[in-house]
């Protein structure tokens, strides 16, 4: 029996009378890949943003490793081990590719103002360790030869990879991926899928929101299906695929799937 890493209990989110997420309960076990799917407007992004800390829930609880995090600002959740990527990329474009990953080591390093100004041997050693970790990561994801380029000069696919690399530099315990395949060509999507399952084999817990069904079905241990802000199904890819409510939500009630 594996431990529950993320637990969502009775979660609600209302915007001016519109209910985006209603009465949602689910959990993510340590070591699994869980996908959240659903038609447009199902509440996937709202849910994702509530877990990451961008949107406050109207009611309910979010617990990470047993601790309530729903009242914490985003950076505090990141410090507890929740890292994320963005659907529309939030890259530091004026900084180099290497710096983008190095800044991901911020909370894993400790130098204060005085140390930074004095630039002593301890600081230099820490800086070298930060750079070494960042370069190892860039190398692993095929961006090492771009290390000194400005991030703004990278292609969309490379930026997606860079954002994932930056999130991993945080050494998260839970990786939130917001549509990791969106905008990627076929081959790059497959590569992204391989990377995610590779990370998972090394022990990373992943929660992802994704439209690409092929990716979701091949990667996920567990799939949560939302429609109109409510859970309509949860289970393995095969179970969910055959679930009548899921078919109805995706293909329409009247049609015969």
């Amino acid at each position, binding site marked *: 029996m594996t431990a529950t890493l993320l637990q969502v209990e009775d979660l609600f989110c209302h915007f001016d009378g519109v209910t985006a997420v209603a009465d949602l309960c689910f959990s993510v076990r340590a070591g699994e890949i869980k996908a959240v799917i659903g038609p447009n407007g199902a509440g996937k992004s709202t849910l994702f943003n509530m877990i990451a800390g961008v949107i406050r829930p109207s009611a309910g609880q979010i617990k990470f490793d047993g601790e309530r995090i729903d009242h914490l*600002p*985003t*950076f505090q959740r*990141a*410090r507890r*081990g929740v*890292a994320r990527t*963005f659907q529309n990329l*939030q*890259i*530091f*474009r*004026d*900084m180099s590719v*290497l710096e983008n990953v*190095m*800044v*991901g*080591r*911020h*909370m*894993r*390093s*400790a*130098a*204060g*103002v005085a*140390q*930074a*100004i*004095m*630039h002593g041997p301890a*600081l230099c*050693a*820490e*800086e*070298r*360790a*930060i*750079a*070494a*970790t960042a*370069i*190892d990561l860039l*190398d*692993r994801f095929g961006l*090492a030869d771009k*290390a*000194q380029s400005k991030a703004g*000069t990278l292609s969309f696919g490379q930026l997606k990879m860079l954002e994932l690399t*930056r*999130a991993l*530099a*945080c*050494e998260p*315990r839970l990786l939130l991926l917001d549509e990791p395949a969106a905008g990627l060509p076929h081959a790059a999507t497959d590569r992204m899928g391989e990377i995610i399952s590779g*990370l998972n084999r*090394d*022990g*990373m817990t992943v929660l992802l929101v994704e439209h690409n069904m092929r990716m979701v079905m091949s990667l996920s241990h567990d799939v949560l299906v939302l429609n109109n802000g409510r859970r309509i199904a949860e289970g393995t890819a095969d179970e969910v695929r055959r679930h009548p409510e899921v078919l109805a939500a995706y293909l329409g009630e009247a049609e015969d799937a």
Partner: protein
Amino acid sequence: MTSTPLTSETNLQQKLVPKILEAEGPSRSKFAARRPSNHLWLILTWLVLLVVPFVASNAYVISLANMALINLILIASLNLLMGFGGQISLGHAGFFGLGAYASGILNVKLGLTAWLGLPAAALIAATAALVIGLPALRLRGHYLSMATLGWNAILVVLFNQLVDLTGGPNGLLGVQSFSVAGIRLDTELRAFPLVWLASLLVMLAILNLLGSRLGRALRAVATNELGADAIGIDSFRTKLLFFVISAGMAGIAGSLYVHVNQYASPETFGISGSILLIVMVAIGGSGTYWGPLLGALIYTAVPQLLLDYEDAELMLFGLGMLFVLIVFPGGLASVPAAVMGRFEPKERL
């Protein structure tokens, strides 16, 4: 080369962290070799500046050099906050004045030496920034600009009205100079080494800060706060920290100013001064390390060159600034790159 174990950075959260970061790395020497160049340039530039007193024809030129280096501290510290941190302070001249009056008054009224006045000025200016920044930086948007604008206006009133302390509109008189081993640094020539050293140390501090995790965090917050939040950076504290550091440096500049000139008067520290400092950051090259050097040079030299034109001086100054910013929006520090860019093939995306 083997990969450095993570434990050297921090021992936080080792228990459940997946072993994703322990992959064998490529050679890193080519990346590590790039660092010291800015340090080297800084030392070389300041060594060159050392010749100023020897080649300067008279005390007037040295006094301009002193002023330029004090202005450099102001412009570089504002650039740290504004150019790299994206936070606009409209009260930088106010912090400059607070440092000057704090150090000057402590000297004139309490007999405190300039050597104690200098850190006191830095501390007082930094504390004031902390008090302003705590509420103003919690809100996103232009609240810091508005708060610092009001702050500067209040300070000018205080400098003028607290006549018993500040000497009012007539200025603060009788401020003693720095002294080293019984020698008063009361001439332009004697003050130069002190100003030279202080400006070097401030420039060095800024360079080191920018190259550290704190500098990276600052630039991250400035370019993309959402992205910075997501990797565990406290945007509010980062902005506050650099606002306080920037104001502290302006306080140092103020203390140098008041003890080198042995005088301070309110009009030096007004809002127009704050605005001119912002313009100089932009003209030199906002968010570039070397830009403030050019900004300080122009801020100090151009008004002197335009003295002959009397009433037209300010207008010519303004037109010149407009010209530079229209032709080189990245500031003067971007000119070499812009010129080189014409001859070099563009990098493919």
